[in-house]
């Protein structure tokens, strides 16, 4: 069981601006291993600003960790060269949040698909390129003649989003990081896209990290979940367990706030405590100030407590359970 991509104790701290330089911990001591031969879908969930995109950018090598290292097949991604680097670029791909921004407005949408084929020398001839593109587009339910040769602004959001997914299909990466790939799409399209993603995992053995704050879709698509709050892991484990029986007060609040399209499942009774402005004590549990069950002990950051083979929560409410080290996070996640 060799690891494809591994985060080792990674933290990312932003020191914003020159004025009132106040560090933001966007990600705190994250360890995560994605294995090459165990394709899975992992959801990273959490509210806005919890560090989801930061995690994605770290995995993609677009930003450098403040602490810790990121390994691709055992090698630090910063020191990758030549072949390895190209392989890493090829095998770790992303579908980004904003379906419009990923297109270069100067080019027709074909650009998005032809460039990787050319750069990674995926095809030997023009005809083969065309075939591959057609194949990928058809796989996401688009008629090639409907979309090719158009400019991005001439397509609908759903079409654009699907071309993005088609790009991922085309490349058949080992790991696909999908950052809110459906946040701007309406319900029916959302279903289509997620279905495509799942097929990708199932049929081609692609691991997917699905980043979202929408737990309904997470629930449906993923196998496991990591819930982040202000850069720290609050709860992690099997998606069914975490969503159906959340144990961390934050997860509970989150799950409680999901607007289920179900008339019998009303928004819960958990009152929402407003998020106070500014940063809280960095040493404390990040959720403490909003937590209805906050205790004195919460002033010290809680470790993860193992609740089940596939569930753990960072909350003193469960301090009877065994602690799990941050670095063992991956063990909690079913594949």
């Amino acid at each position, binding site marked *: 069981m060799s690891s494809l991509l591994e985060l080792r104790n990674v933290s990312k701290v932003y020191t914003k*601006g*020159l*004025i*009132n330089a106040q560090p933001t911990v966007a990600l705190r001591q994250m360890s995560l291993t994605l294995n090459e031969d165990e394709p899975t879908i992992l959801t990273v969930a959490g509210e806005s600003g919890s560090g989801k995109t930061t995690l994605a950018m770290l995995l993609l090598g677009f930003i450098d960790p403040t602490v810790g290292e990121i390994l691709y097949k055992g090698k630090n991604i910063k020191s990758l060269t030549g072949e390895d680097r190209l392989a890493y670029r090829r095998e770790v791909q992303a579908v980004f949040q904003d379906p419009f921004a990923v297109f270069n407005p100067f080019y027709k949408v074909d650009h998005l698909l032809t460039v990787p084929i050319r750069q990674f020398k995926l095809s030997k001839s023009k005809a083969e390129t065309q075939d591959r593109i057609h194949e990928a587009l058809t796989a996401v339910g688009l008629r090639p003649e409907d979309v090719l040769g158009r400019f991005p602004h001439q397509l609908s959001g759903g079409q654009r989003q699907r071309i993005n997914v088609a790009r991922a299909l085309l490349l058949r990466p080992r790991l696909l990081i999908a950052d809110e790939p459906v946040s701007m799409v309406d319900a029916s399209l959302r279903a289509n896209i997620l279905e495509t993603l799942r097929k990708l995992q199932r049929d081609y053995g692609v691991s997917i990290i699905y980043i979202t704050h929408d737990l309904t879709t997470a629930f449906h698509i993923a196998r496991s979940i990591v819930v982040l709050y202000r850069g720290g892991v609050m709860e992690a484990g099997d998606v069914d367990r975490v969503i159906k029986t959340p144990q961390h007060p934050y997860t509970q609040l989150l799950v409680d706030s999901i607007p289920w399209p179900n008339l019998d499942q009303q928004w819960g009774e958990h009152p929402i405590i407003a998020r106070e402005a500014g940063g809280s004590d960095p040493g404390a549990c990040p959720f403490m100030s909003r937590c209805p069950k906050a205790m004195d002990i919460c002033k010290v950051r809680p470790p993860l407590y193992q609740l089940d083979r596939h569930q753990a929560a960072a909350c003193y409410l469960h301090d009877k359970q065994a602690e799990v080290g941050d670095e063992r996070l991956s063990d909690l996640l079913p594949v």
Partner: protein
Amino acid sequence: MNTKIIVQRLAFFALVVWAASTIVFFVPRLSPRNAIRERFGELARTGGFSPGDIEKLIASMQQQFGLDKPIWEQYWQYLGNILRMDFGYSLSRYPMTVTEVIMQSVPWTIGLLLVTTVLSFVIGTLLGAVAAWPKAPAWLRSIATPFILLTGVPPIIMGILLLFFVGFRMKLLPLGGAYSVGLVPNWSWAFFADLMVHQILPALSLILGSVGTWVLSMRGMGITIQGEDYVNFAEHKGLSPGRIFRDYYVRNALLPQVTGLALAIGTVVTSAVVVEQLFGLPGIGTALNLAIRANDFPVIYGIVLFITIAIALLMLLLEFIYPVLDPRIRTN
């Protein structure tokens, strides 16, 4: 704003002044010309001076101005002098000092530049805002176009045309000079009025062309702002177009415009060099023009430094004013 920022900005300001003074020191010296000799040449040519042994004279003047020393020594001395705001003597207007030359001419220029810059900024910004404002009446929006065309008229040409047609042919306004011949400057209203009348044409020469540049930039900015959600929302609130225009649209579009203001001074000064000459105004532009012609580099570097410092100071000032205008910067 904390002290760190202030120190940083001040340090940058110092750097700009140092760099500018160094450029200004070396560039004129790159030219193989000899200012003192040219001064005598000028005098000889106009007959104002009949030469004795010019070479001896020149040597003695060189010594007096320290020009016979090695250039690095001159440079260090020069930097020291700048710290003391002492630019030495004018070569062509000896025994006047550079500071005196500047002080004599600055008031004329400041008045003119202040008025023209402010006027063209205000008019241009308003017209630009209107030009991008779809609710404005069409005729008002179309005023912008001629002004944009006018940006193609260099101020000096504008000045020539105005002088001839308005000044000479129509005899509406004086043909030059800072004030009427024979008046002695004083603090009376009559003098002030006379002064103003003499500034109209020079000011117009500078304004007419530069309004367009403000129109252009404001219009560009306005177009962007116009699509902003908050402008739409203001409309949803049922505000009158006038209020939306003022508080939501202009106020936001204005911010980048203000940054341009400091930079514009540089261009305006350049134009002033030629316009002041055209109108016979004894301002800093004329002084610089004369100094350039006479290769009077103490005066050149004095004036250039003065302008550079003034612009850098304005930019510095804007750095500090900007947060006042834009609350986002204030707290961020």
